[in-house]
């Protein structure tokens, strides 16, 4: 008998079976597979079976039973395979997300991956999700982040963009963190602000979900008299899922998910999948928050350590300075008394000696040298005195005018022109008047010494942030590097800086009061001394 279907042939020519499609060409030569995959579904085969029945083939009566059973089994297999595939995809997705969640310490990264996984089509495909977290004091549960479109227009635009980009879930999360996280926090500000609930409010749905450690699916919320409609009104949907986030019995927060755009019902399977997902999310969120707090604590600790080190250094420095003060003070006392006796009697003798006495010049030398030694001593004592400043608020411009008036004669003699550029609107500075006057006097004298052949001295005062800047510039010979270095070493002298402790004392005085002194020497000539003074009490 000639059959319509090719089931009886071991091998067939191409195009003899219209049901063999592209890519299935191997079926032409594979008899068994062709029969199982194609012939059982083929109408020609059914016709052949009918003809067989008519021709009295002994198996023709039972073959249709076998065929029907086979087809049912095949359909069941197909359904199971599809279920298995979807589960495999879900596991793969959970694994991918879980891996990031397990390894990340960054709260923003965890948030991004969790919220993207809930809302992306490649994830759980919910339209919108809100994350609420318990606050640090563990008193309230607060709205933290909302993700999703605000309206239809934004929804289609976003979903179209995502569809075109073909990003993996991980890439989507990364993109979200980089470009949208901060704006999303602001976008749902109005809703998030209304979601704060005290943890003690037992009856609230968030606390019920946390207490029961189970998600709660709310349906038809606006028409359900058993439910608080407030939440549905805030969210603008009547069907949503409240998923508790619990890690090691600690209440981390709650995720609310809904389909506010598509209004697709939330299935039991959606709920179960999200529940599985909630565990690693809660754990990762807790870990990231703890890590963030740890970082904060570490930063605080570091700052405290730094402060402590600075304080220790200050104490060591102060002890050194106090010792220097004690020594200089003691030396000064033991020297000043004999000097007074030597110089004093020399003066007495000088007074009583006749004008033409040859020995007068010796006595004059003693008087002069004693005077000089006494001046050096005064400077040394000033240094030890600088350790105990008396701080108060003073008008800097007035101080400048007073000091410059004292130096006027010296400037005139040296042929130096003084230009003052004082800002009239200066706040009061918090200084030891005597010490800052000394500094200005010393710096101005140093500047004058650099202009032995005359020049221009510029004194400026100006506001500098929350402080006041005092600048003294000369047009004289620039200070050498060595001279500048000498600033930091007390009692270090260079020829150009004159005798005594001079500028180094100024620097010490200024720094001890929380101010600063810097010197810039211009290679072409001239030096600028900048003093920055504080206008309020600092912790020094």
């Amino acid at each position: 008998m000639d059959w319509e279907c090719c089931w009886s042939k071991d091998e067939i020519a191409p195009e003899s079976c219209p049901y063999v499609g592209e890519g299935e060409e191997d079926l032409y030569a594979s008899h068994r597979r062709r029969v199982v995959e194609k012939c059982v579904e083929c109408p020609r085969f059914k016709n052949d079976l009918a003809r067989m029945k008519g021709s009295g083939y002994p198996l023709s009566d039972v073959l249709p039973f076998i065929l029907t059973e086979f087809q049912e089994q095949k359909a069941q297999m197909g359904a199971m395979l599809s279920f298995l595939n979807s589960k495999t995809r879900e596991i793969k997705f959970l694994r991918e997300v879980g891996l990031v969640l397990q390894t990340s310490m960054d709260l923003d990264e965890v948030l991004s991956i969790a919220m993207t996984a809930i809302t992306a089509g490649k994830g759980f495909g919910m339209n919108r999700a809100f994350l609420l977290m318990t606050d640090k004091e563990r008193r309230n549960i607060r709205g933290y982040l909302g993700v999703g479109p605000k309206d239809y227009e934004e929804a289609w635009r976003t979903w179209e963009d995502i569809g075109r980009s073909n990003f993996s879930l991980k890439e989507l999360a990364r993109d979200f963190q980089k470009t949208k996280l901060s704006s999303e926090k602001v976008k749902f500000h109005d809703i998030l602000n209304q979601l704060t609930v005290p943890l003690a409010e037992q009856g609230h749905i968030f606390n019920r979900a946390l207490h029961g450690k189970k998600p709660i699916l709310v349906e038809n919320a606006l028409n359900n008299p058993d439910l608080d409609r407030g939440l549905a009104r805030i969210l603008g949907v009547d069907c949503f899922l409240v998923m508790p986030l619990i890690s090691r019995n600690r209440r981390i927060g709650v995720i609310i998910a809904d389909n506010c755009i598509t209004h697709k019902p939330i299935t039991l399977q959606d709920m179960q999948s999200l529940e599985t997902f909630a565990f690693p999310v809660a754990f990762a969120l807790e870990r990231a928050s703890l890590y963030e707090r740890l970082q904060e604590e570490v930063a605080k600790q570091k700052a405290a350590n730094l402060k402590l080190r600075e304080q220790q250094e200050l104490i060591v420095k102060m002890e050194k300075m106090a010792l220097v003060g004690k020594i200089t003070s003691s030396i000064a006392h033991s020297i000043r008394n004999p000097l007074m006796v030597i110089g004093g009697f020399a003066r007495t003798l000088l007074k009583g000696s006749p004008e033409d006495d040859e020995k007068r010049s010796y006595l004059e030398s003693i008087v002069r040298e004693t005077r000089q030694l006494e001046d050096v001593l005064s400077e040394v004592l000033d240094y030890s005195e600088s350790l105990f400043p008396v701080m108060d608020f003073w008008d800097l411009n007035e101080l400048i005018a007073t000091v410059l008036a004292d130096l006027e004669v010296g400037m005139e003699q040296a042929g130096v022109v003084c230009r003052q550029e004082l800002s009239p609107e200066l706040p009061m500075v918090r200084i030891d008047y005597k010490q800052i006057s000394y500094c200005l006097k010393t710096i101005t004298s140093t500047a004058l010494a650099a202009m032995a052949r005359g020049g221009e001295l510029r004194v400026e005062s100006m506001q500098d942030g929350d402080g006041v800047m005092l600048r003294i510039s000369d047009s004289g010979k620039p200070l050498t590097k060595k001279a500048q270095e000498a600033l930091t070493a007390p009692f270090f002298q260079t020829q150009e800086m004159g005798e005594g402790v001079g500028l180094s004392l100024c620097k010490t005085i200024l720094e001890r009061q929380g101010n600063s002194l810097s010197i810039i020497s211009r290679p072409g000539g001239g030096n600028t001394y900048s003093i920055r003074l504080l206008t309020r009490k600092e912790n020094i």
Partner: protein
Amino acid sequence: MAKLLVVDDEANIRLLYAQELSDEGYQVVTAASALEAVEKLEAESFDLAVLDIKLKNESGIELLQRIVKERHTLPVILCTAFSCYKDDFSAWLADGYVVKSSDMQELKDEIARVLAKKQKAATN
């Protein structure tokens, strides 16, 4: 002639004070310690006292406090090697404060000023 009590534990300085201040026309009595000063203050009357701060057994500041307490009309000038006590509250009790110097002009001026002030107060 104004009568001055000068208290300093250094013999040479007492000598210098006596010489220089006598030349200025003052009657000068010296004391080497706070104890001696108190004895002299009890025995005689003075117009002004010049005190050093660092004395052997008692500080000049303590002596100043005793003088102010017991003889509050006697003006006192502190004359010391330290300039730092000038800002010390306890030194503010004194009528004058001079840093020791071989040039005694500042001390002489201060004595003249304080005595003039005292005289003015008495005439008023």
